[in-house]
């Protein structure tokens, strides 16, 4: 069954030309997960069972390191892994949102979906939080932001 995807959700997906049982092999251990889910950040801990911990770490531009993740709440082989998403230490949200990785057999292969969802659980202005995640970042706005940040970058290294 898996978790119910919360109403406020952001989704990315990919189709893989292999059955779910093959794709799932990549979910079976920390080492396997690190080889792909550690892209763009580092996967420090992955305990593949309900109640197991997922701990991720990424580098901030200012040189600091930030950690995030939480306990696994759904672990269904060949089907789904869902874990809580919060910054560590927490930024003071009410309840963590979720990250769900879901495998569905489709078109002679598997669709893998990655959701960041149930953002409403975080409380506060979850509406704005979701808008920013889903709609707020037009490329134009991101580009404008990148230009300002990049222009300022040399000054920070002096």
């Amino acid at each position, binding site marked *: 069954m898996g978790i119910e995807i919360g109403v406020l959700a*952001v989704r*990315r*997906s*990919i*189709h*893989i*030309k*292999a059955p779910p049982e*093959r*794709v799932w*092999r*990549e979910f079976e251990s920390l080492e*396997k997960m690190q*080889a*792909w*889910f*550690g*892209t*763009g*950040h580092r996967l420090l801990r992955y305990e593949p069972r309900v109640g197991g911990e997922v701990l991720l770490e*990424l580098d*901030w*531009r*200012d040189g600091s390191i930030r950690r*995030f993740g939480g306990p696994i709440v759904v672990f269904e082989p060949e089907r789904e892994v869902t874990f809580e998403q919060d910054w560590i230490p927490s*930024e*003071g*949200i009410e309840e963590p949102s979720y990250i769900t990785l879901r495998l569905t057999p489709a078109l002679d292969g598997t669709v*893998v979906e*990655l959701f*960041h969802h149930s953002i409403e659980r*975080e409380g*506060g*202005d979850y509406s*704005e*939080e979701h808008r*920013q*995640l889903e709609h*707020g*970042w037009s490329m134009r*706005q*991101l580009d*404008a*932001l*990148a230009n*300002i*940040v990049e*222009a*300022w970058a040399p000054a920070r290294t002096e």
Partner: protein
Amino acid sequence: MSPRTARTDTFAAIADPNRRAMLDLLLARPERNVGDIATAFPKISRAAVSKHLGVLRRAKLVRSRKRGREQYYELNPQPLVDIHDGWLRKFEEIAEASLQRLKERVENEEA
């Protein structure tokens, strides 16, 4: 103020094109007084310029300093840097790069 509230304020501040142009102006030359800034925006009143600067100051995107009778403004890009480096961008990176890598691994039987 929580980091999330701060982020919302930053977004609201840079949503306005005049305020973005003011940040660009301060980026080009580090310190300017209100008169300098107002001169660069002939189409809007000096009162409106002050109001925009107030929004930017509350969002901590500019810092002001009084020197003599003049108020000087300088850019503080840190809130923008925090967002740029933050979860919004990271979620996209993690999601897209990770799924692509998973596909390559499985389809190319690297595992």
